[in-house]
């Protein structure tokens, strides 16, 4: 079956603009995670969904970041008023349950000019 997919693969935007990043998890996976990875660093947790609800959003850096998963499948990470420091690879992962292996998507490489 298909793995986790993310679109777009690359996004270039200007400072101050709004962006949306999409994640399509593995079919049937109830848990979905967003991470952010800067160059030379490990992925850093942003938010975790169990079903439709955000079970833990403690990793979101500020209120410019928001994520939704309205039907418990596809998720969208939304960043308002982008800043240059938001430039990173945004990774999405999904898992089948609470302790299951997380499967990562290819990521969206965001560049804020």
């Amino acid at each position, binding site marked *: 079956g298909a793995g986790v997919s993310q679109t777009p693969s690359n996004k270039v935007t200007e400072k101050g603009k709004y962006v949306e990043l999409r994640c399509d998890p593995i079919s049937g996976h109830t*848990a979905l*995670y967003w*991470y952010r990875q800067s160059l*030379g*660093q*490990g*992925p*850093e*947790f942003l938010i*975790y969904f*169990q079903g439709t609800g955000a*079970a*833990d959003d403690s*990793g979101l850096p500020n209120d410019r970041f928001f994520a939704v998963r309205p039907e418990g499948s596809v998720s969208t990470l939304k960043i308002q008023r982008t800043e240059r420091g938001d430039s990173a690879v945004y*990774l999405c992962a999904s898992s089948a349950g*609470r302790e299951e*292996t*997380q*499967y*990562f*998507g*290819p*990521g969206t490489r965001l560049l804020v000019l």
Partner: protein
Amino acid sequence: GQQVMQIPQYQHVQEGEDFTTYCNSSTTLSNIQWYKQRPGGHPVFLIQLVKSGEVKKQKRLTFQFGEAKKNSSLHITATQTTDVGTYFCAARLSGSARQLTFGSGTQLTVLP
């Protein structure tokens, strides 16, 4: 900041040499996972260790979990050019946490 420390940050080895990366935490971990990320790729799950002192092998890769469940290591015997990439350890820092906290990774270069 990172609560899972990983060393070394970089390692260059000649093909055929062995390689080890170490992961340490100040807190006891319920389990630890290891991921490999190829250049330009995304993290790919390798293994999960759960038990104190556990040792698991995957071909040339040997994974260990410390007796106190605060440290772990990944050892590759006789490296090959296909082993190139960054190896991350990751852990849930509390029993209630679902998200993973990643180490900063060890970037392995294998010289032919």
